[in-house]
């Protein structure tokens, strides 16, 4: 593999082929865990570790996986990794683990992880597979952290727990936007983010499903 190919495998999923904003994969956890930057960071790290390890293992045994049961094998590998990560979080970061609740275990069914192992790791040697997984994990992390930062900043006035804007309750002038801590705001923000990215990178825009009828300005 040439150097540019390696680089593009790693960098492409950050913006150009971003799994969340372009392929709209892994949305469920992206909405659920982004109320604060800390949970978003831990979730991103867990997912990135799981996806890279899964890519390595599946890529190593790719010639031995029977085609008919390949999904079962992939899910078993991913699920075992997720259980390990979940136990580690419960042992070392109990508070955050409680906040993330089921969403770490749900990495098992995250379409992003299975999507990459099924479409890339299964067909490629270990190194490119891991790079691709790392790139996708980082792309997912980027979106999660951006949305988590916006939600925490405007919903609570803090970032990673440090008070950036003093709220009215603390004698400041910033009124927290409660809506930011509710799930719908993540939808709005994600939609706005997709809009912004597609304005900057117009080739991501999907083709119109319908063409609006032409309006005639002066009808007799």
């Amino acid at each position: 593999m040439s150097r540019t190919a390696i680089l593009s495998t790693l960098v492409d999923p950050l913006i150009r082929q971003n799994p969340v904003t372009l392929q709209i994969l892994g949305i469920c956890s992206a909405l659920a865990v982004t109320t604060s930057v800390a949970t978003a960071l831990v979730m991103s790290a867990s997912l990135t570790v799981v996806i890279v390890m899964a890519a390595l293992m599946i890529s190593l045994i790719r010639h031995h996986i029977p085609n008919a049961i390949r999904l079962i094998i992939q899910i078993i590998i991913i699920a075992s990794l997720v259980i390990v990560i979940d136990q580690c979080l419960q042992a070392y970061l109990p508070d955050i683990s409680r906040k993330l609740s089921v969403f770490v275990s749900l990495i098992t069914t995250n379409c992003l992880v299975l999507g990459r192992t099924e479409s890339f790791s299964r067909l490629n040697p270990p190194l490119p597979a891991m790079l691709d997984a790392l790139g996708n994990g980082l792309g997912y992390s980027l979106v999660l952290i951006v949305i988590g930062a916006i939600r925490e900043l405007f919903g609570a006035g803090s970032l990673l727990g440090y008070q950036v804007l003093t709220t009215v309750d603390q004698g400041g002038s910033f009124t927290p936007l409660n809506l930011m801590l509710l799930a719908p705001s993540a939808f709005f923000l994600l939609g706005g983010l997709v809009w912004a990215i597609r304005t900057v990178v117009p080739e991501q825009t999907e083709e119109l499903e319908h063409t609006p009828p032409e309006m005639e300005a002066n009808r007799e």
Partner: protein
Amino acid sequence: MIRGIWDREMVALMLLAAVMPMALIWLWYGGTAALSRLLLTLLVAGIWHLLFMLIRAQPPSFAGALTALAVAMLAPVELNLFQLVLGISFGVVMAELVMGGWGRNVLNPATVTLAFLGFGFPAAAWPDLPLPVAWAAIPAALMGMLAGVIPVHILLAGLLTAALALGAGLPVEPILPVAGLVLVLLVADPVASASTRAGGWMNGQLYGALMTLFAMYWEQTSPVQMAVSAALLASLAAPILDEIAIATWLQRRRGRLG
């Protein structure tokens, strides 16, 4: 929809003319505070319409003034400038302009703005509208119906549900004025409500039923918040009500014609 003089802007202007009684009486009672609020909402909505015209070549609409009026009348009162601007920007852009402008929106932008402000700033108190403003909703509704820009079935269905609830002795009397005003101002919107006849009946009844339910069980809130929430839910349900109406019509037709 263009038939003779009836293009989109004509409908918007007729709607504006129809709600004038409400607007004028509200301004009369609200004084300069109400006027400055209305000017602010008009300015923000106007700026967004202008920006979308300049950037996306989307024709601006007088319906923006309608949104501004509804928001100025019904938005929570203690909001500061930033919160009000944020709310109305969200409603006008996300609910109306990104969909392609008035006529293509799924939800009424004013309803979305008010729901956004209500959920975003739950501590701010909702306005107490003076009773004459609610009375002014009646001539407004009549003018709108005569001009054909306010759907009749939705109003009738809403009134019928209110009458049924009153007849059954349910405690809906204190919320009736605000419910009627919001019915005319937000629910009976020609774009975001159900557009088939049967769908319109169901839409009005759904709004009335939700209001009755909220009046009975939603404690510690104001009638305006109940009405805005009911309007939002009824508006969200409008497409499926139309779908049900069309499906039953097709079913009946198939039964008749074989």
